[in-house]
């Protein structure tokens, strides 16, 4: 048993690990004039709520500017919150100072770019051991060495690779080093921000499988931020779809992918091609016009109404709240404020 498996997570599998309530991250815009008064704010994240259980993966998807990465950074408290509360492992950490706080050991980040996120002048041993040193958990020499070796094995690398530098590794291996580094402090939550999108197609699966195995073995919770809807479906238990700083739909994976309710979710899924010409030839598609509006000036009413094929008069003026439809499903759309009437958009037309 490697040391990382020795410590049992304090939150049992299936119990709430993270709760985010009405999270807002606004960046003030510098204004002109002598007084440099703020000219408003970029509302990058504007009222986001969700929960994540231990051992569970919540996928966070959306296009650029939707606020998915900002949400991840805010949960880690790497960005100041403008409003909202964050509960982690049963504690309200909203008011805690991130630096040196215990909760920062228990939640770790896996970055997108395995080239830019590892210091090229540090050996793998130092890269993985650094978090232990910083938090004063290195312990005695023998224990420390065993810990590094164990972490490398955990992510499918060999213990003798500890003496090498990042440039000696491929992209997939580097990403595994990044994961080993994140695991050093025995976190219960990993925030993975596009962890495979910088990798070549043939090696993405190596990292996806490592993440899956780790979760099964260690009961980690993952907040999995990505734009690749197929990878998100593969790894997630539940999925939240974001658009211009808001969650527009959240549901269990199968419900969301089988019968998306929000017109944006439908369009997003429909835009992703399936790697099978036979399926593509028969697929019904929901196409949206235009591009995501600037987050500086989100449209009034429903933020999606400018591109929505089903927009009504009401959508232009009235912002739909995220309505709970039961069974873990919530949608922010005037079409679904009452009883759900799922519109099934099958990937393949029924044979």
């Amino acid at each position: 048993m490697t040391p990382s498996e020795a410590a049992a997570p304090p939150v049992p599998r299936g119990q709430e690990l993270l709760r985010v309530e009405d999270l807002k991250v606004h960046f003030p815009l510098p204004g002109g004039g002598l007084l440099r008064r703020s000219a408003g704010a970029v509302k990058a994240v504007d009222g986001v709520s969700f929960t994540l259980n231990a051992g569970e993966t919540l996928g966070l998807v959306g296009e650029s500017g939707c606020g998915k990465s900002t949400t991840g950074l805010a949960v880690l408290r790497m960005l100041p919150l403008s409003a909202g509360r964050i509960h982690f492992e049963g504690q309200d950490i909203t008011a805690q100072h991130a630096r040196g706080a215990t909760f920062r050991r228990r939640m770790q980040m896996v970055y997108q770019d395995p080239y830019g996120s590892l210091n090229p002048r540090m050996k793998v041993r130092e890269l993985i051991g650094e978090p232990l040193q910083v938090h004063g958990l290195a312990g005695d020499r023998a224990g420390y060495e065993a810990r590094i070796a164990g972490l490398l094995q955990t992510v499918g690398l060999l213990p003798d690779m500890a003496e090498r530098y990042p440039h000696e590794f491929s992209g997939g291996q580097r990403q595994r080093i990044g994961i080993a580094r994140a695991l050093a402090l025995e976190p219960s939550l990993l925030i993975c921000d596009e962890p495979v999108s910088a990798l070549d197609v043939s090696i993405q699966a190596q990292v996806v499988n490592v993440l899956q195995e780790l979760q099964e073995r260690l009961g980690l919770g993952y907040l999995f931020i990505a734009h690749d809807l197929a990878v998100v479906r593969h790894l997630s238990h539940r999925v939240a779809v974001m658009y211009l700083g808001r969650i527009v739909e959240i549901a269990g994976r199968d419900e969301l992918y089988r019968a998306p309710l929000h017109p944006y979710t439908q369009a997003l899924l429909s835009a992703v091609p399936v790697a099978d010409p036979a399926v593509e030839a028969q697929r019904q598609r929901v196409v949206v016009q235009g591009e995501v509006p600037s987050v500086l000036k989100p449209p009034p009413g429903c933020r999606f109404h400018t591109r929505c094929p089903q927009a009504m008069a009401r959508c232009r003026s009235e912002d739909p709240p995220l309505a709970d439809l039961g069974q873990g499903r919530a949608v922010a759309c005037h079409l679904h404020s009452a009883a759900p009437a799922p519109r099934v958009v099958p990937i393949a037309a029924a044979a």
Partner: protein
Amino acid sequence: MATPLLDVRGLTVRFRTERGELTAVDDVSFSLEAGQTLAIVGESGSGKSVTAMSLMRLIPDPPGRITAGQVLFEGQDLLQLSESQMRAIRGDRIAMVFQEPMSSLNPSLTVGKQIAEPVNLHRGTAWKRAYLVARALLERVRIPDAGSRLQTYPHQYSGGMRQRVMIAMALACQPKLIIADEPTTALDVTVQAQILDLLKELTRETGAALILITHDLGVVARYADRVAVMYGGRVVEQADAATLYARPQHPYTQGLLASIPRLDGEAGKRLVPIPGSPPDLARLPAGCAFAPRCGRADATCTASRPPLRALPDHHLSACHHDAL
């Protein structure tokens, strides 16, 4: 059989690098009919972009050099043309759409001027009329309010709109062939679908052939008629799209298809990764470039390179085990 629009034979491109000379494109052959869409798929370093650039003779020399092969376009070998003859073809009968529209558009010229320029240059159309053509093209790529957009600059456009401008430029002289190198990689998924739908629709209308360079097997499945899979600078498999996905022959193609999660696959089922990583072109193995990652590799594979062999249904595959 009629002469194909484009017939590439034995194209070989070598680069001089600090680590010695390497072959980025090695004996690549394919052909394309009018109206057809050929996808060239591969990962980084597979040679797919170098192939595209070589067709247009846009490889910087030095360090690159086309050392062998023919690029027969409408029966004429582009590799034998002078630079000025080649310039007359670029942007006229063959057009290119690049990945990064911001770096391929001139930031200091209006969008109208950039679209009108090839019309003026290649067709000798007076500027005033060329601007009218530019306006019609902007409408055609569905840029709203095209008339007033002629006087705007690229930075005033979003990523997707810029790519529409690139497509308008490419269409300006009614090319016979459009080469699109990862045209939507930098775009969001809903915009990607819009741009590729538009490109496909326009090629259908004009009868132009399209070469789509991509790493995305989903995009290939949705838009391509024929597919060439590249690995380590070579084409390892080539077939009609339907055949390739239904009966992939080369272990690399099979491996790729097994390693990607699908929107309609069995969720959560373990993916089968391809071990190792793509080869370093400066240190290619003597035999099959895929052999170090291939579960079926044996002594033959490490000793000699498998040639591209013909299978039924216009299907080509370069694997020593194809006969099995």
